[in-house]
């Protein structure tokens, strides 16, 4: 899937702790430009902390993080022009309209996308003058995706893109992720749904207790789990619990 052979994100020996609790412990991974890379693991495995270090929102206690060769914490302005993010549990002011939000965020980036085209693409044109509070859950999610894309990023991080969405909206999200890759955008997808990772991702890193326990193509992981494991879901259970079958 790598078109140019460039590395979009390289994390080496990352460590991060909060007080006594170790969130990420010697984690390394590499995301190639142009691929959809999944970070998969149970709740509290350190997925969000890992991507927050990649987004420059957290300073690692150890190890290095490079986004297209840039340190996202030290050179945050440069890095943040290249990375679009959709964060878990991040909202907008109740009374801001869809158009206002997207125009505001567009003004944060020197090279921003066409906001009209983005609204059309995400099916928000009819909701352009609607206030945030009046949007449905799926519409709010689509708006947060629009804000992640408005800066024309080379890498997009989706943290729990489809959590809480109905099946139709989930499929819509998956379609969008594939289209982004077709446009040459690298996608980092944080999820705890194995079916989502299996369906979408070119490669997956399975994270547990702040470490990568397995990394590879979804079909490789399924084989590695055991020949009898038919889905990635089964393989994950086998790989993370050491359950023999």
């Amino acid at each position, binding site marked *: 899937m790598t078109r140019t052979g460039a590395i979009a994100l390289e994390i080496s020996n990352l460590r991060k702790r909060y007080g006594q609790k170790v969130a990420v412990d010697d984690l390394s991974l590499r995301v190639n430009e142009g691929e959809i890379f999944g970070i998969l693991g149970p709740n509290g495995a350190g997925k969000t902390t890992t991507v927050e270090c990649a987004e420059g929102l957290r300073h690692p206690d150890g190890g290095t993080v490079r986004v297209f060769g840039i340190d996202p914490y030290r050179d945050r302005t440069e890095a943040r022009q290249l990375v679009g993010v959709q964060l878990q*549990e*991040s909202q907008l002011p109740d009374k801001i309209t869809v158009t206002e939000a997207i125009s505001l965020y567009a003004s*944060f980036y020197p090279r921003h996308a066409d906001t009209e085209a983005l609204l059309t693409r995400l099916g928000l044109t009819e909701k352009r003058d609607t206030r945030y509070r009046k949007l449905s859950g799926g519409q709010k999610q689509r708006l947060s995706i629009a804000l992640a894309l408005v*800066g*024309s990023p080379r890498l997009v991080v989706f943290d729990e893109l489809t959590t809480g969405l109905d099946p139709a909206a989930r499929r819509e999200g998956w379609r969008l992720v594939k289209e982004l890759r077709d*446009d040459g*955008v690298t996608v980092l997808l944080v999820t705890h749904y194995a079916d989502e990772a299996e369906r979408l991702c070119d490669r997956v890193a399975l994270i547990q207790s702040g470490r990568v326990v397995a990394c590879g193509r979804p079909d490789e992981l399924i084989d590695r789990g055991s020949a009898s494991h038919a889905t990635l879901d089964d393989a994950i259970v086998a790989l993370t619990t050491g359950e023999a079958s």
Partner: protein
Amino acid sequence: MTAITTEPARMPRDSEHRDSGRSAFRNLVSTETKLLVREIVPLLWGVAFPIVLLSIMGGFSHGPDKSLGGLSLVATYEPILIAFTISTFALQGLAPVLAGYRERGILRRLNATPVGAGRLLLAQLTVNMSVTLIATLGILIVGDAGFGVSLPTQPAGFILALVLTSAAMLSLGLLIASLARTARVAGAVGTMIFLPLMFFAGLWVPQATMSAALRRAGDDTPLGAAVSALQHSMAGQWPSASGLAILAGYTVAFGVLAWRLFRWE
């Protein structure tokens, strides 16, 4: 299907950084202004209420009153109502809005953009300060045109007192936003602090009618010092150095604490 991005990104030049930073700040200020205007309650409370109260005072005002130190009722209340406006926007506007932005992940989201949430904080301060100035002008104009309270005869001193009062109250608002985890708590704490501060400003009992001990205690509070400084400069005197120093001291103390305690998430 519209492609969102197909061409490789390039690094923007420095001038582009600066331009986009300026336009981002302008957009933040205009968006925050729109959001403030859509909240009808703070505007009623912070702008309409003081002007209505001033007009009522004006209706009952019968010239200079010895018990008010020779000032009319309406002239006594004008600086009190200016302090009221400033405090309303700082304690019940800025503080809960910022705490709510943090609570809802808005500050964190902005920190993931090239602009950063610090600009939003500056935009909030700018908007609150501007609304306060406009409301103050409104109070001064209504007092002058409607009830014969002349405009400040020591304008430089008045502006200095106004700026220091705003600075002290906005940094107190920032401190509340630093300590409170939610918008609701920030709003409640803001109101709890607002009431005693307004007492010493003389909202219920003007300073001139307070006992000497109470007035001395009040002089050391932010709004007690603020109202004295505003009152003196309105009457043509330079505000007392100690009053201005007290306001500056509160600004520094609250500001430093807020700076150290403020969290983006």
